[in-house]
């Protein structure tokens, strides 16, 4: 029951006087930058709930999948015998002597399970993905094999897009600045950073990013995914390097690690004891077979995990990496902008020095409403990447208007526009996250993750409920994201809500009513914990109100 109950930070039990033991890393021995937190504050910050699946629900979920598989075989039989018409595409006759392009199980799953509920994903939108968006309506004439746009759309509250600070806007100062950059530079670039694609605006973006994060330098790339997959190999190339990777790391990190052709070890999600064990073992035993010492060891983690809503226990990781001499790669795709008093991300959230993290990576897609990613850190690191990153050498540079969007939104967050609008957005997001999550818990849903995370996963478990939940809420004009196998473990299908600073409390109240209603009808309020009363809305929003008042 690893994930059961509440995980306290680092597992070291608090002593009687209410202070954490020294081994925790918070109190002495770390560095001067770490403020000395009181025990209860740390405990609160690291409070993450992963209520285990109730036994009956687990059994029923397996039963559900069993039924689906049986029906799948039955329908495959019907299709083979010609009773049911096949709508899937088939390969050209010319190619019949070729080795089949796909493995059979994969297509079985797609054909018989995914296709039935495929309308819950890839829903096209036809507006800006802000607090509300227009979702195009689709119908299927052939049992969900093909979806056809009806031409109509539905105005929904947007709980799916990663628009944490609400910068997905089609008007206002950011859009105007982006339009100006478009005028000045055009849309594309047609060259790489190392050749003739190094624009003045890229340099400005990198200066701004480094200043925002409080590190020496930064380098930016046109795609968030590629920032990981094309830069990790430049850091850990060659034999004799070891990568320790969290089991729930994003696909881009996994791919980047894989492209290094080095040894990769996976540790349990956010489990500092497991990391320490693996790290010690690795250093003591050295490389496999030769037992030669490792050249370097890199620990790769994310700030907020996008499927779990959990927050990395950063101070513990920093303590470990300092103690043993490993390096730390922190992917802040979901946390930069979304966490911390001034949006500096997970380092600010925990009050640690960003310079203690060797490689600060993040994306511009989410909090900044743009696209692309950055890597920030020491001058030496960034120089190395400028010279040897796959991306700076071979890939087209970032589009200028996109770069401008990041610069503008970042400056607003830093308050460099002379207003407190950025601060207001951060507070609004924090309040929304807190309010929304607590209300869901109060209703009796099983909610995963950290109390402060703007990502709120709610467990659905059963495959049929994935579709029902998504469709029912869509009918009530709420756009949500649902996720099932293989993106989650088989029995842990879930819905994931992403809060935004653009959401107003009224919107969320409306959505919560709808969710509660659907939850009752679909019997989704699984939680066996004793009900917790949510903190009042007034308390959640007090900081926002006072700040708005000041403005």
């Amino acid at each position, binding site marked *: 029951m690893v994930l059961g109950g509440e995980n306290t930070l680092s597992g070291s039990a608090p002593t009687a006087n209410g202070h954490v033991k020294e081994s925790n890393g918070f109190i002495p021995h770390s560095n001067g930058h770490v403020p000395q937190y009181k025990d209860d504050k740390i405990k609160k910050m690291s409070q993450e709930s992963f209520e285990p699946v109730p036994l009956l629900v687990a059994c029923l979920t397996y039963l559900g999948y069993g039924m689906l598989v049986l029906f799948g075989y039955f329908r495959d039989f019907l299709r083979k015998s010609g009773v049911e018409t096949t709508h899937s595409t088939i390969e*050209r006759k010319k190619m019949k002597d*070729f*080795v089949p*392009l796909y493995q059979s199980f994969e297509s079985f799953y797609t054909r018989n399970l995914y296709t039935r509920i495929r309308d819950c994903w890839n829903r*096209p*939108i036809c507006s*800006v993905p802000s607090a509300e968006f227009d*979702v195009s309506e689709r119908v299927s004439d052939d049992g969900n094999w093909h979806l056809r*746009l009806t031409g109509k759309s539905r105005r929904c509250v*947007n709980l799916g*897009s990663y628009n944490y600070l609400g910068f997905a806007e*089609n008007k206002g100062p950011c*859009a105007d600045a*982006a339009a100006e950059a478009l005028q*000045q*530079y*055009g*849309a*594309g*670039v*047609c*060259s790489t*950073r190392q*050749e*003739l694609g190094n624009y003045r605006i890229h*340099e400005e973006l990198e200066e701004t990013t480094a200043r925002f994060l409080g590190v020496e330098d930064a380098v930016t790339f*046109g*795609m*968030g*995914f*590629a920032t990981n*997959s094309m830069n990790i190999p430049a850091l850990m*190339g060659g034999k004799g390097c070891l990568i320790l990777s969290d089991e729930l790391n994003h*696909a881009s990190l996994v791919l980047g690690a894989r*492209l290094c052709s080095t040894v990769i070890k996976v540790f349990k999600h956010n489990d500092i004891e497991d990391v320490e064990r693996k790290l*010690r073992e690795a*250093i*003591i035993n050295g490389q496999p077979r030769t037992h030669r010492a490792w050249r*370097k060891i*890199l620990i790769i983690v994310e700030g907020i995990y996008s499927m779990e809503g959990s927050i990395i226990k950063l101070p513990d990781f920093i303590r470990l990496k300092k103690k043993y001499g*490993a390096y730390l790669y922190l992917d802040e795709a979901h946390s930069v902008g979304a966490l911390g008093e001034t949006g500096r991300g997970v380092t600010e959230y925990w009050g640690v020095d960003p310079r203690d993290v*060797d490689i600060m990576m993040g994306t511009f897609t989410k909090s*900044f*409403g*743009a*696209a692309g990613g950055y890597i920030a850190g020491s001058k030496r690191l960034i120089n*190395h990447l*400028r*010279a*040897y990153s*796959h*991306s700076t*050498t*071979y*890939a*087209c540079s970032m589009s200028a*208007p*996109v770069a401008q*969007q990041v610069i503008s939104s970042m400056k607003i967050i830093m308050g460099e526009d002379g207003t407190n609008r950025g601060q207001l957005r951060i507070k609004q997001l924090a309040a929304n996250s807190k309010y929304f999550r607590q209300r869901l818990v109060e209703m009796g849903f099983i909610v995963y993750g950290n109390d402060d995370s703007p990502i709120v996963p709610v467990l659905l478990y059963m495959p049929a409920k994935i579709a029902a939940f998504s469709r029912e809420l869509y009918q009530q004009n709420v*756009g949500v994201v649902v996720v099932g196998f293989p993106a989650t473990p088989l029995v842990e299908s879930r819905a994931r809500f992403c809060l935004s600073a653009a959401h107003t409390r009224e919107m969320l109240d409306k959505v919560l009513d709808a969710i509660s209603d659907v939850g009752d009808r679909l019997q989704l309020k699984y939680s066996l914990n004793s009900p917790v009363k949510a903190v009042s809305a007034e308390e959640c929003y007090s900081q926002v109100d006072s700040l708005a008042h000041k403005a």
Partner: protein
Amino acid sequence: MAVEDVMVEPWYMMQMVQAFLQAPVYHIVIEVLLIVWIIGLLFSKSYRIQERVQLTEKEKEDLLAEWKPEPLVPDTPEDHPALHPRVVSGKAGLKVVVDGKECLNLATLNFLGMLGNKRIEKAANTALYKYGVGSCGPRGFYGTVDVHLDLEDKLAKYTRTEEAILYAYGFATIASAIPAYSKRGDIVFCDEGACFAIQKGLLASRSKVVYFKHNDMEDLERLLKEQAKDDKKNPKKAAVTRRFVLVEGIYMNYGDIVPLPKLVELKYKYKVRIFIEESASFGVLGDNGRGVTEHFGVPIEDIDLISANMEMSLASIGGFCCGDSFVIDHQRLSGQGYCFSASLPPMLSVAASEALRIMEEKPGIFEELRTRCQWLHAKLSSIPGLKVCGEPISPIMHLQLAAPSSRAEDTKKLETMCNECMNQGVALTVARYLEQEEHLVPPPSIRVAVNVELTEDDIDHATAVITNVAKMVL
């Protein structure tokens, strides 16, 4: 006969039970021990050659304290060109302002002059004020915007294929497409001159990679024959081993064109699927710019997958793959760069759409481009001390030294040439590679890119400057 068999069995069983009951105790004990021993053997681990070393806690702590990691990254040489990049301010069209000086642009891959096109800017601007900048999500989770679907439709229609799929980053397009199909155990025959994105895709796929000599179909056939021989030895394995050939339409690193008709012949003969990377040939080759298939008049259905980025001819960002729905649709669940990345910013999708529309409206533009390529190719070929690598109709040409010496020295000479040309108003760039990581590093070269807006005067001017500089430097 059959009836007897059935009759015999229960009798036999009865005998066994009886024998068991009558057996002496020591017999049973021995047999039970034997069984336990066998089970023990089955479950015990195979013997170890080395004794397992048990370290004391102190020894462990010593090892931990002794271990000193290498620095995360080495120091980058101060004179590395990436640390002193040239800064472009303003649009990189036919003219570009580099480090404050206006130059004729022969460096960026803006073949059709779409970068700087007013119509495209206007369309992108309208999209910006409708959709904002970012799409804020992957395609699966509300990151699909109607303009993405529209562009996919248009691309499929334009290339005359069944379906197209969009990626948010040019490099990620082919690098994600390859591992979506080719898995561990499959075999990929790849041109050894293939670009870096293909190499990374192959690495990610974990397939067996067999490189054939650059653009040498005979060498490819030799390897395919060898493979066919191996397949005969192990037909069971051969029946599940997918085979692919990976080539580029116009090779980014060489500027030459793949001999496609021969390749298609080999495809059906040896049952290999063809994937083509068409970044440099889409919007360039063929009467309508449909690429290398149109150039050779090969039916596009004979190609299993075509991938191209939209960062050259279309002068936007991102890339696409096109082909039969049977093939392409698979990437919507298996293309990593498609599933796990935020989608292309809608305004950039609109920019690409508009560029495609211009291509449709002005099919003459491709012939114009080819004429300019031929002009420039002929002129550059006459410069003493340099040689031009690539087909005359390719908009990418590599200027190499006619008398090469060491790699470092050549690169330095070419860098000096580029800098000097820049001072004289012609922007050029050395083709950059990660020499340690490339499968086969092409010879050092200046990569010249042709823009359709070049006039004859521009070309004469550029040639004169390069000739002068070559005389000075070489």
